[in-house]
């Protein structure tokens, strides 16, 4: 009897802990997914978008670069003002020293990525290093391991945020990232045509595409006249930034950006632009 009482009591305690663990927000931490970049077809708008994705995804930059004070809040501060000021700082001795203009900003950002300790933003150095050693890991080595193209993309994104047109080179064929061991699942084979991509992501369930006559979302014919490529991209990846007239926010799924490959996104944009008016 005592035994049963003790066991029931212990079980109850255990269940309380388990229940609590199941009540807090549940998020699975997935390993970074390799972006397959279509060298040749990606343009600068694509690079900026890729950079944004990498910034909070594989690059893990938002882990430190946020409004919590561990590192400069790159998404919050006025980069157009801050970056030139850093380069002009007396104690700055890096490659962009004495230079100005978009190219200098590119060099400064790239240097921050591959050699963070070259210049440490005052107040952010490693404890006890008198701002000589940066706590930021090199972006091109483990655990972050961005490729050259990916670092270019992140740089393009930050230049874009600083209000300059990105000056980074577009990737050329021989820079294509090597296939890694982590092969994708069968069903996640990238779509290779616009129609296939549209089908794969079910756009036609809401938009009148491929004769679906769906009317949950607006007609997409004649987009090329109304919108730039970048705007179309944005409408797909961040549908809630600009809402089409006569429709409501939060209707279109906002996670296509996470699911899609860049190649697919490009295919879809091309496909949409070619729709008859």
């Amino acid at each position, binding site marked *: 009897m005592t035994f049963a009482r003790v066991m029931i009591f212990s079980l109850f305690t255990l269940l309380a802990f388990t229940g609590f663990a199941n009540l807090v927000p549940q998020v699975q931490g997935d390993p970074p997914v390799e972006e397959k970049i279509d060298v040749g077809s990606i343009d600068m708008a694509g690079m900026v978008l890729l950079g944004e994705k990498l910034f909070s995804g594989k690059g893990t930059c938002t882990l430190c670069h946020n409004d*919590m004070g561990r590192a400069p809040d790159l998404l919050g501060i006025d980069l157009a003002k801050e970056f030139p000021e850093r380069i002009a700082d007396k104690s700055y001795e890096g490659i962009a020293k004495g230079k100005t203009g978009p190219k200098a900003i590119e060099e400064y950002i790239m240097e921050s990525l591959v050699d963070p300790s070259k210049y440490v933003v005052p107040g952010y150095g490693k404890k006890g290093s008198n701002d000589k050693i940066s706590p930021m890991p090199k972006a091109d080595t483990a655990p972050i391991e961005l490729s050259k193209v990916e670092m270019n993309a992140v740089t393009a994104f930050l230049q874009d945020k600083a209000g300059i047109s990105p000056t980074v080179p577009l990737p050329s064929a021989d820079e294509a990232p090597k296939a890694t061991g982590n092969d994708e699942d069968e069903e996640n084979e990238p779509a290779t045509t616009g129609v296939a991509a549209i089908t794969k992501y079910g756009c036609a369930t809401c938009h009148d595409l491929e004769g679906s006559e769906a009317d949950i979302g607006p007609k997409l014919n004649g987009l090329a006249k109304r919108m730039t490529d970048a705007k179309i991209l944005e409408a797909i990846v961040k549908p809630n930034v600009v809402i089409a007239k006569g429709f409501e926010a939060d209707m279109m799924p906002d996670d296509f950006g996470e699911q899609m490959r860049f190649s697919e996104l490009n295919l879809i944009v091309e496909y949409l632009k070619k729709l008859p008016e």
Partner: protein
Amino acid sequence: MALNHTSKLFALFILAVFVLVPDVAFAAADAAKEAGEALVGAPKPTRADYPMIGGLNARTLAWGFAQMHLFLAAFVLAVPMFSIVMEYIGHLTKDERYDSMAHEFMKITMSAYSLTALFGGTLALTLFLFYPHLMGYLMKVFRGQFLIYALLFLLESVTLYIYYYSWNALRYGNRKWFHMSIGLVLNTVGLSLMFIANAWATFMMSPSGVDPATGAVIGTVWEATRNPLWNPVNLHRFIANIAYGGAIVGGYAAYMFLAEKRAEVKAHYDWMGYTSNFIAIAGFLPLPFAGYWLMAEIYAYSQQMGITAMGGILAWLFIIQAVLIGTIMLAANYYLWCGLMRTDRGAQYAKYVKYIAVVIVGGFLVWVTPHSLILTTDEIRLLGGTHHKFLGPLGIMPAKNTAVNLMLVFTFLSLQMFYRSSRVPTVSWAKAGNMVIIALYIIGCTNIVFAGLYGYITPTVYKVGASVPQVVSTLSIIVFSVIIDIFMLRGAKSEKVHWGRMSERSQYALFVLPVAFTWLMGLMGYIRSSLRTHWHVYTVMKDQSPDAYIPTIGQAGNTITVITLSFMAIMVFVFWLSRLGSTSQVKPS
């Protein structure tokens, strides 16, 4: 006979020395390795290289076996540590009760020992079967150390058996010293075992002695062993194990107390429960500090890893940790308060209980209240990937530090009250002494609160600094009151403690402790492994297995619960076995 023992002891001593100078042993292994081998990097298995065996989930299996092994090992390592202390106290005070209790503790340990080995073996098998590349790499890094581990395990078995079975043969006088020496060797071997295993676990988090770019082995075994997180984990586990062992034995005592009818046996188990709870609290009080040190070293090793720990997915885990620790504190305190019933003077202290309760519950609430920046599911997802925004330095803000320190101080006060309730000081300066202690508490707590307030108004980076004076205050209160008490209670008039005069309900607090501790330990293991994110060996060898993701807290919690249940079932079996050993059938007439 005595000579025989002496020679055995001598042999054991020599072995222990050999073990304590790891460089000697490692250097031998290294020398053999030195013969100019080409540097090969860490293996890079692809997903297809991970053996799939009968649809079993490799990670869950390894997780379960590792955790079971750790639970049992922590218990088996911890009990001899406080057994020997108790043996020594018994020897000093000539109070046989201590000696018998230490012996009884050991009896429980003996039945758990072979199970520890069993799970250890199963774990090793699982790892080699499912993760051959990783294990191959670790073997390359640690070379002969695996053999030393095996050797130590053998030695542990031998000493453990000798220590236990020679108990009654070496009970008094000089022989007792022999016996305690065996215990010392046993504990040395046990700790070395744990330190070696810790080296493997911490190497996987903060590898050293290998080429950072390729993972090629370039250093000695000692360099890989002495990686940045080795000592912090050694200390944290060492202390946690003691607290854990105390909690489990306390559960055993509580059960025996409830199940017994005979008053004198009840009294014995009440005393055993009290002592175990004392051990658990003594181990518990320094734990948060060891935890902070561990966390600080993680930040120093890699800010990225530190922020991963305290941010996003794992940030919520620390809230759960806070709830568990709070539960443990409340249960331990509740038990102490109930204990005031045992003395006739206790009632005089009982009136303070409500104030202590307010502080402990209040502190608990402050601690579990999520920092305003705690993330919702959507916010975490938005930040993408494995890594997230983080919650300020160490995630635990000055308010929380203040709460934790006050809770520790007041838990200590509960302990001190009970201790005092059975002793009336007779020294002439007793009044003055008491005033000093009260002043100590007041000044200390004021200091803790003000340092907390100061922490609030200083910029982020200096907040951590504010916690140092708080810790110093807490430790000063504890250390100085103990010192004053020692002198003041010399020759004190002892009041009778009515052991056994305890409510049934109070015993349930002693069950909360082991359950919460076991679950907490499982949770922390999950955190430690998750910090490596998608790496087997952080920054050096990637995890390409299908299980390279961090499970959600709910999934992890369910797994931990299942493991905890299995462990409880095993402990029930172990206790039953140790009872069985001392029951004998009455001869039929």
